[in-house]
């Protein structure tokens, strides 16, 4: 077995060195991608203009990838029995601080999500930032409290509803005689928080969706595996 691995590492090495050698022959063409994007989408963050404007189609699938992974993790981990020995940290100071951090991270995450079209960030990052705070709270809570406050069923329903809302937002333009995934709301003044048509709306929805999904993943892992 060792020999076989050695041979494949050698082959891989040869291939990579060939790639490095032939990288000289690859020219570089920088297309003019920046001008016009703001006029088209109303978002001054051109990356967001691509991410949620021109290539919204990819982003829809990206959300689906995340959802599929969450659903798969929940389903597959459901096979193993839940762990009895979740031992939360119950010191008062830790509880208060984690709660504070949770609140702060939710607000930060929300801001990052909503302002995705005027500064760096966006829905995905915002959602995960919020979820990180929630994970801290999980360390201090008994399992029943976690299950009551972050109820699996309600979270699943919300997740599905938000997903459907995003897809409907992508489909509405057809009814107005435009092509699907077109930005059908007024674009507003670039640079303001209310601008960019559907981009901030979709960003917010993605943020909430990702928050729920990441919390679900973390909760399932903790439920079946315990923390640390």
């Amino acid at each position, binding site marked *: 077995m060792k020999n076989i691995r050695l041979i494949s590492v050698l082959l891989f090495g040869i291939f990579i060195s060939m790639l490095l050698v032939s990288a000289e022959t*690859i020219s570089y063409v*920088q*297309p003019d991608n920046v001008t016009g994007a703001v006029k088209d989408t109303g978002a001054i963050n051109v990356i967001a203009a691509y991410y949620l404007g021109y290539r919204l189609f990819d982003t829809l699938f990206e959300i689906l990838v995340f959802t599929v992974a969450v659903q798969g993790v929940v389903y597959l981990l459901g096979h193993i029995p839940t762990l009895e020995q979740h031992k939360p940290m119950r010191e008062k100071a830790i509880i208060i601080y984690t709660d504070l951090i949770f609140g702060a991270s939710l607000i930060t995450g929300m801001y990052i999500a909503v302002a995705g079209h005027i500064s760096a960030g966006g829905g995905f990052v915002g959602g995960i930032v919020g979820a990180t705070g929630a994970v801290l709270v999980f360390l201090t809570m008994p399992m029943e409290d976690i299950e009551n406050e972050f109820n699996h069923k309600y979270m699943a329903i919300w997740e599905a509803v938000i997903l459907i809302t995003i897809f409907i937002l*992508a489909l509405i333009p057809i009814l107005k*005689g435009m092509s699907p995934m077109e930005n059908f709301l007024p674009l507003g003044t670039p640079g303001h928080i209310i601008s960019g048509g559907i981009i901030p709306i979709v960003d917010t929805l993605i943020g909430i969706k990702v928050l729920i999904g990441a919390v679900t993943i973390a909760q399932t892992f903790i439920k079946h595996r315990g923390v640390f």
Partner: protein
Amino acid sequence: MSIDIQIYPSLLTLVPMLFAPLFLLFRTKLVQKLLASLIIILDLLIIYRLTLIMPLDEYTGGWILRGIHLRFDNLSLIYTLLFVTVIGTSWLSSFKKNYPPLFYFLTSILLSTLNTSAITLDLFNIYVMLELSSIIAYILIAMKDNWKHLWASLKYLMISYFAFTMYLTAVGLIYMHTGTLDISRITGEIPPIIVSMLIVPLLLKSGVFPVSMWLPAAHSLAPTEVSAILSGSFVKMGSIVIFRLINTPILKQAYTPITLIALLSALTGVILAYNESNVKRILAFHTISQMGYVLAGGPVYGALHAFNHGIFKSLLFFTVGDQVEETGHYDIKALKHAKFPMHRYIFLVIGVLGISGVPLFSGFISKSMIIHHIPIYGKVVLILASVGTVASMSKLVSIGYRKSSIKLIPHYIIMATIIILVGIRYIEHVISLWTIIESLIVIIVGITIFLVIHPKHIPRILEKLDIMVIEYMLTLITVWAILYM
């Protein structure tokens, strides 16, 4: 909603996508049946409307040249029809069994990714489709909580993630070189090393021999409907992307290595299948062999064969898989004691006649088209492969049947009807004295081989993870070397 909504190719994807989360919200059987049929009917309607105005180009969001380029043409028509049919019939079959709502959620998203792969012309979009559909496949294979399934799935995950990361690197380098991700706008020469990095992951996805030894374990361990979906529609995704790339600078000179690999795959697949005793693995090895035919056939005849293969392979997986689930035996010797009931055996035979290329069945059409449009060395290899197909399919037929009450099973009937209809409708394009004699000779020689040569057990050394990686690397370097010369 008025009837004159303008129709777009992207609707093919957005419709299953929109309905998919509903499967998780409403978990009763009745609603799930309704939703499934709604998705299939809407998709078929959209395909019908699109055929009236094809070929049709769309840039997503209406942003010309900046949105993602989608195109609906003949190739897309064949493939989307196949995907909708296979997934629709699998749903039909799954309602009799106890599948969780997650299955419907995943398969309807799978349908939308497959549809997208049939219409997209964007290299990065293709990457997303490759990854999403593979993620769905990992979960579907691992749905049974058995460590063998989990290991098959994990093995597949590692090798394909490795490959797709390489594909993404190639996409990045192509973007750097040409300044675009749109296949139809790529101009100029692409260095061969990038082409090989781009092509081999697609070959892995299409399930041809040296790079796809994940396929037998995954396809044979999965439940019946999942096997049918995987073999019938999922592996076709790589082939359509390759066909899309054929007339572009990327693949202009690169078709030789693909043809060679395809021919190798066609032959090796049947050899491995003949020496196998697990019935579902026989079918999985046939997928490897038949995908060789598809890729050797090129965008016209290959696409037709992909359609035909999807239909008869899912019929075979339905019949054999149902039998295996009913009796619990995978081994062909054990199955000889638990024979097929009559109503299942008939459809098994129809599927076998289709895959063996007997006149009046669909396999005959596309196989003879491919054999007649390939250079002479390819002809010899493909005829040998056909002989092997007949020989190893005779093993399945030789299990035999027992008398039973007649049952009408709708998904069997749909698939069998398509096989026979295609076989009769297009027969005038290929029929000649020579093709008939050829197919008769193939059948006779195949059955003789089945009677004379006894299969041997081949150890599964090619399916080890380390060996799979080395197969992948070897193919990569071979493709690069052929292109470089």
